[in-house]
């Protein structure tokens, strides 16, 4: 472990963090622009050309607002809640392979911060502790609506985590590894996992919507019933942290979906024409980000297309449809992998 290695990893961490923040910032702008487009409106267009400075104006507004902490709340936990939300949202980017390695002066630098051999479980663990930020914040506000929003959020996330985990198990069966870097590397050119695991991919995407609390699963913050959900009592930048965490989660979900099922940084047929390794890596990164941006757009597109579920419908979908479907997916995958052995039994 030389000094150069540590510096390179530090640079990578800072770059990934900065990109995550910028994308989350501009997701708020994109959300309103996409909403405007889908509803035949203009969207924000006052701050800067095409309203491009709108996120900056929003950030200034959130920082300048008066900060209120309810006197009946639990102050420490009230502050820890949003901080925890943002922290867990930022933690997943560590195991994502953002591209192949770049070779500079004969040294190769892989564009992945840490290739842990249990990367999938790491992502899953971070997702499962992401609930605490919402639960702690909702409870510490000492408000009925906040508590109800927090309880809704956590029960929804726990329910959909089960189906998500089961859909990932089928993916692990076909890839034979828990390392995210290896899964991305296996899908070279067009061998994307979505072609092998279409059902698992669909279940994973639906669960990702529920895990990020996005429409049509945004019951934790449904305004008509719960005022504002778990962040009713929050103001100024603490509120901003919760909103920011949601957008980061959306970005990370889009990244994980593209890495697991849509080939990650791999692009079909380009390797036949481009032979410069570094150029190929940079193209791969660009291609990954194109997939991610489409994923984020897909999240917003669905938000303005589907109405919100009722709570019992949400639970029925999670427990009675998605979990049996993902178990069926595991059985089918297993049967397909053992097809020669099964056929041998019947031929004899």
């Amino acid at each position, binding site marked *: 472990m030389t000094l150069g290695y540590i510096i390179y990893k530090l640079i990578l961490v800072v770059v990934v963090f900065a990109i995550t923040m910028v994308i989350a910032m501009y997701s708020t702008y994109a959300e309103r622009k996409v909403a405007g487009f889908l509803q035949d409106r203009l969207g924000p267009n006052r701050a800067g050309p095409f309203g491009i400075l709108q996120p900056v104006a929003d950030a200034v507004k959130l920082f300048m607002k008066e900060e209120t902490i309810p006197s009946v709340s639990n102050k420490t936990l009230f502050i820890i809640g949003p901080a925890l939300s943002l922290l867990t949202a930022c933690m997943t980017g560590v195991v994502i392979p953002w591209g192949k390695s770049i070779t500079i002066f004969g040294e190769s630098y892989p564009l992945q911060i840490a290739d842990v051999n*249990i990367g999938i479980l790491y992502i899953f663990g971070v997702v499962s502790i992401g609930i605490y930020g919402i639960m702690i914040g909702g409870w510490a506000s000492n408000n009925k609506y906040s508590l109800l929003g927090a309880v809704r959020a956590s029960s929804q996330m726990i329910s959909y985590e089960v189906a998500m985990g089961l859909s990932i198990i089928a993916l692990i069966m076909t890839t034979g590894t828990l390392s995210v870097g290896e899964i991305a590397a296996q899908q070279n050119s067009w061998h994307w996992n979505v072609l092998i695991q279409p059902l698992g991919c669909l279940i994973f995407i639906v669960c990702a919507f529920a895990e990020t609390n996005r429409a049509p699963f945004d019951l934790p913050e449904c305004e008509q019933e719960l005022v504002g959900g778990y962040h009713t009592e929050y103001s100024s930048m603490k509120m901003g942290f919760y909103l920011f965490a949601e957008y980061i989660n959306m970005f990370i979900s889009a990244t994980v979906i593209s890495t697991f099922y849509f080939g990650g940084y791999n692009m079909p047929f380009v390797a036949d024409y481009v032979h410069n390794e570094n150029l190929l890596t940079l193209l791969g990164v660009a291609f990954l980000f194109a997939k991610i941006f489409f994923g984020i757009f897909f999240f917003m597109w669905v938000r303005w297309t589907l109405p919100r579920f009722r709570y019992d419908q949400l639970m029925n979908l999670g427990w009675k449809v998605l979990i049996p479907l993902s178990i069926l997916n595991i059985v089918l995958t297993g049967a397909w992998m053992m097809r020669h052995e099964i056929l041998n039994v019947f031929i004899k």
Partner: protein
Amino acid sequence: MITTYLFYFLSFLAIMCALMVVFSKNPVHSVLYLVLTFFTIAGHYVLLNAQFLAAVHVIVYAGAIMVLFLFVIMLMNLNKDTEPHKKPWLKFSAAIASGLLLVVLVGSLKGAETIVPTNAFNPNIGLIENLGKTLFHDFLLPFEVSSILLLVAMVGAVMLGKKSIK
């Protein structure tokens, strides 16, 4: 060298958090300290090169079980007023019983130094490939039996949760 310091730091944190679980007045604080304790224990697993165990520990204990605990405690809204007051003789007997348990623990730990591990410790046993092979080769029957146990528990929970059995 750095692992030794990490070990002492994690152990200190684990013991502190475990004590805070007991000493916190607020049950929600107790649960949150228990979550921190689980994290420090997961850190110990990582130090032992058992990454799979650490990840599963965080997912299952911190991510699932403790969330349900927190869930129930938040909804019950435990306050000072609703807490039942124990009778003095009960407190007295509890103190004596736990004191006896302390004596037993000290007595058993005093002789623990002489135990020598019989087979050499494989530092890579905690990695997922080795763990999977061990589970499905050497311990296949206990592994499957414990999964049946979990299934039975699940069926039992569903039966208990049902309002009426038709």
